[in-house]
């Protein structure tokens, strides 16, 4: 028997990245803009989606792919009752969505008839950052009660995003949250990233986010 060193030099998540590329091409061919929406549990992912649907309904056809670790359809049901198609993906306990799950989700929804697909990732600030899905943009929701130190504790997810939605700003008077400290952490990790402070409870701050989204949709 010979011992031999074989060079490999392959990115560990190469297979996922390639499938993500296929997902991207599929969305491009359908003319559908895809968002990967990430956040911790309870930051308001579903609430932001519902507000966005409510305000864009009429002008935009939106579909949602919901990722959950448990076989519950709570989120998908809420989207469907808001009048938009939704697919529920159960990750079977996995902590993130990957490109295979998105490919399956796209098979279950009429992509061609949609202007926008929002993928609601599993509530988690660590794992989703590592897996490309093939969507066009990464959006992270942070929320005031989570605390101002989250960029420092979960740097990877902040580094990979294009847009940061800061939710629950109506709670600022009641919660200790140093906005300068938070913004400084975000700026170190992701200089110039778009930040939209909003409140799903009051509706405050949604117009700039929707303007940004409309501009993206008109380009697609």
């Amino acid at each position, binding site marked *: 028997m010979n*011992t031999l060193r*074989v*060079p490999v030099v392959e*990115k*560990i*998540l190469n297979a996922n990245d390639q499938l993500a590329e296929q997902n991207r091409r599929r969305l491009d061919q359908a003319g559908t803009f895809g968002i990967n929406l990430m956040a911790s549990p309870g930051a308001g992912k579903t609430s932001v989606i519902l507000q966005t649907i409510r305000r864009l309904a009429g002008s935009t056809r939106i579909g949602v792919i919901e990722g959950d670790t448990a076989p519950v359809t709570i989120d998908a049901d809420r989207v469907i009752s808001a009048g938009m198609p939704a697919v529920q993906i159960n990750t079977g306990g996995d902590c993130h969505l990957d490109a295979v799950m998105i490919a399956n989700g796209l098979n279950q929804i009429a992509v061609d008839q949609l202007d926008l697909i929002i993928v609601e990732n599993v509530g988690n600030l660590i794992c989703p950052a590592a897996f490309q899905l093939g969507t066009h943009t990464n959006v992270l929701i942070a929320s005031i009660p989570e605390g101002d130190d989250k960029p420092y504790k979960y740097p990877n997810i902040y580094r990979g995003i294009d847009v940061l939605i800061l939710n629950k700003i109506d709670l600022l008077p009641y919660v200790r949250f140093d906005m300068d400290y938070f913004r400084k952490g975000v700026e170190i990790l992701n200089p110039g990233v778009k930040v939209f402070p909003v409140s799903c409870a009051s509706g405050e701050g949604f117009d700039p986010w929707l303007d940004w989204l409309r501009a993206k949709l008109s380009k697609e």
Partner: protein
Amino acid sequence: MHELAVTESILQIASEHASKAGAKKVTDVYLVLGRLSSIVDDSVQFYWDALSEGTICQGAQLHFERIPAKMACLDCGTSFELPGELILCPKCQGGHVKVITGDEFRVDSIEILQESGENL
């Protein structure tokens, strides 16, 4: 936390390259991971031992080479290594920094056993 999915990918990559090279057995797998990739070595090793059982990679030793997280300040040009936590540029206290190394996440090479003379 996503070490299971990562380990599955490592096993797939190592097995593919081993088969192509006509390996009887994989003895070592060399990984290069930047400090910024949130992967726990012990956890990968644990999954590896379970997943590789019965495959060409069974019993192979994983080697983790960790690349330090090096940053460059976009304002003053200073290069510095992250001590583990997020810091501003130590020289100008600026926050405009760029990652130079630390994002690596690859299978670099494998060591295999081949039948002698197989490729002759």
